[in-house]
């Protein structure tokens, strides 16, 4: 069935196989938890540096155990349930948030030798297998589906709190995450074009054979993926869902204790997963030079974590630097810029593929393609401008009407 692509599972399933799979799942789970702990510390330390502060310093060396301390503190705090909350959903929501965050990581290949045509298998207890928990044939879609499900956690948390700020937060969350999922999906679709597969493992193998997708798809999808991914994570500058200054805490305003900790955990876990997916799709996954043959298996892991760290650093950096978008500006960016751009680029890359297949000359195709895209973009922006002008006119008319009625009142 769904796991069949892994060489581990090809020759039938016996006890060793089951144990290996369980081991992989367990290690991934533990790894993710520890990673989250460290990432939270990393973010706090880094952002403190950027803001002329010291940050956590007391728990453990350099405050590295701060997250653990916070977790323990939260665990022992009182668990509040608002009176007007919808009890079942209120309790359910944190799990809807954290489970997709855990599961999505399962498809990421974290190691294995992909250099020199290696197919990324490692041998473990005499069996060869991939260093990823599962490699479903529709792996990337699996990730998209899970990130779609993750919206429920945020949304239901806000709704079920029975309070206004969380409700506003969850209304924002639903619209935002759906909108940016479209852009995210279209950016990923370009990767499908260049890799010809939906399986994460195949995508990584394909990149090691040719060039990394970030170049093969021409940077633009990567940029769109990064922006849309940040929005999908509700990280600044797209953190309208939480927006402390406006909505207090957004969807998790009413949450406390361990439930709040779950949200916190899932947010950072999603951050790691999103970084890992970006590395897998665009930056060749664990690929990188094997410097020493002695502990060769370490290098892919090392490159993978290095790349992920680069993304994590970027996310923190963005948070330290940028103000937040407004809701309508966010929607404008998503629908009027990112989605059309992703779609247009997708079409351009597809055209180039077809042109290469049919032996058309590249340069005229590129020129015509760009011209067509430009035409489409100018049509779109023309329509947007016209609509804006009309709306302004309408608003003016409305203002005149109210002014007229006000002066009429004055005379009366």
């Amino acid at each position, binding site marked *: 069935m769904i796991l069949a692509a892994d060489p581990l599972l090809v020759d039938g399933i016996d006890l060793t196989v089951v144990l290996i799979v369980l081991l992989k799942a367990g290690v991934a789970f533990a790894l993710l938890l520890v990673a989250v702990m460290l990432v939270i510390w990393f973010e706090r330390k880094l952002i403190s540096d950027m803001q002329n502060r010291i940050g956590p310093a007391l728990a453990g060396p350099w405050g590295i155990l701060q997250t653990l301390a916070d977790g323990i503190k939260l665990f022992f705090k009182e668990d509040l349930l608002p009176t007007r909350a919808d009890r079942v959903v209120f309790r359910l929501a944190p799990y809807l948030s954290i489970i997709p965050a855990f599961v999505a990581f399962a498809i990421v290949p974290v190691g294995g030798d992909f250099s020199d045509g290696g197919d990324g298998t490692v041998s473990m207890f005499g069996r060869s297998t991939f260093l990823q928990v599962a490699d479903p044939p529709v792996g990337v879609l699996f990730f998209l589906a899970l990130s779609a499900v993750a919206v429920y956690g945020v949304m239901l948390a806000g709704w079920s709190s029975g309070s206004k700020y969380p409700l506003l937060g969850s209304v924002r969350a639903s619209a935002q995450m759906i909108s940016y999922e479209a852009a995210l999906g279209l950016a990923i679709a370009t990767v499908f074009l260049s890799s010809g597969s939906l399986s994460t493992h195949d995508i990584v193998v394909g990149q090691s054979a040719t060039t990394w997708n970030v170049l093969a798809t021409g940077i633009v999808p990567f940029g769109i993926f990064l922006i849309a991914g940040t929005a999908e994570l509700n990280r600044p500058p797209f953190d309208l869902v939480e927006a402390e200054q406006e909505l207090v805490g957004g969807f998790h305003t009413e949450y406390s204790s361990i439930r709040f900790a779950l949200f916190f955990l899932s947010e950072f876990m999603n951050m790691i997963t999103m970084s890992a997916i970006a590395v897998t799709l665009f930056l060749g996954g664990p690929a990188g030079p094997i410097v020493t043959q002695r502990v060769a298996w370490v290098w892919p892991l090392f490159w993978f974590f290095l790349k992920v760290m680069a993304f994590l650093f970027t996310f923190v950096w963005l948070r330290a630097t940028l103000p937040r978008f407004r809701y309508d500006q966010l929607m404008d960016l998503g629908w009027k810029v990112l989605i059309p751009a992703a779609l247009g680029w997708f079409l351009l890359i597809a055209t180039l593929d077809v042109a290469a297949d049919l032996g058309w000359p590249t340069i005229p195709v590129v020129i015509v393609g760009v011209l067509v895209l430009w035409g489409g973009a100018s049509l779109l922006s023309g329509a947007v401008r016209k609509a804006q002008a009309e709306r302004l006119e309408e608003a003016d008319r*409305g203002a005149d009407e109210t002014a007229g009625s006000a002066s009429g009142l004055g005379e009366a």
Partner: protein
Amino acid sequence: MEVAVFIVSAVVVLSGALGVLLARNPVHAALFLVQTLFGVAVLFVLLDATFLAAVQVMVYAGAIVILFLFVIMLLGVDRADDLGIEPIAGQRPLAAVVGMSLAGLLATVLLVAVDGLTGAPAGTPIGDAGDNTRRLGEALFTDMVFAVELTAILLTVAVVGAVALARRLSGPMQPLPVVAIAEVDDDPDEATGDDS
């Protein structure tokens, strides 16, 4: 194994569907719908239609039901909805009768046709899980290409319609149809006149 998965997901699907009908709170109903959709996705996986399974979750659970919830939250229909009011007398028993008879009809069909549900085998099998996505794509661009193109028109119509209906007009509206609006007399002068 397959039978077990089938039974579990069938229970999930059916209980979710029942939940949609029986839940009093629209948000809960929507969540039951998600449950059903997940069960269906699992059934798809069972049939090696992994692409459909993923897309089912992405599109239905990830977008459509979310939009349901969005509307429910924005309009706040989860609060003030009195199901006790019955605008057309006797429609509930009638609906029950019609629904039961429809269900009975379909049940009869299933029971009667126990020997063979289909007269003809469906087209060729759509390949194993790995091949499935490609085959689906091929079908969409060969046999079903016209349907795909029509879907484009359909979606355009829907978008145009939504935008046209969401538009707010300036200028006067037509008066509401006269259906017994109580006349409210709130002329303060008259009221004080009565008192003094």
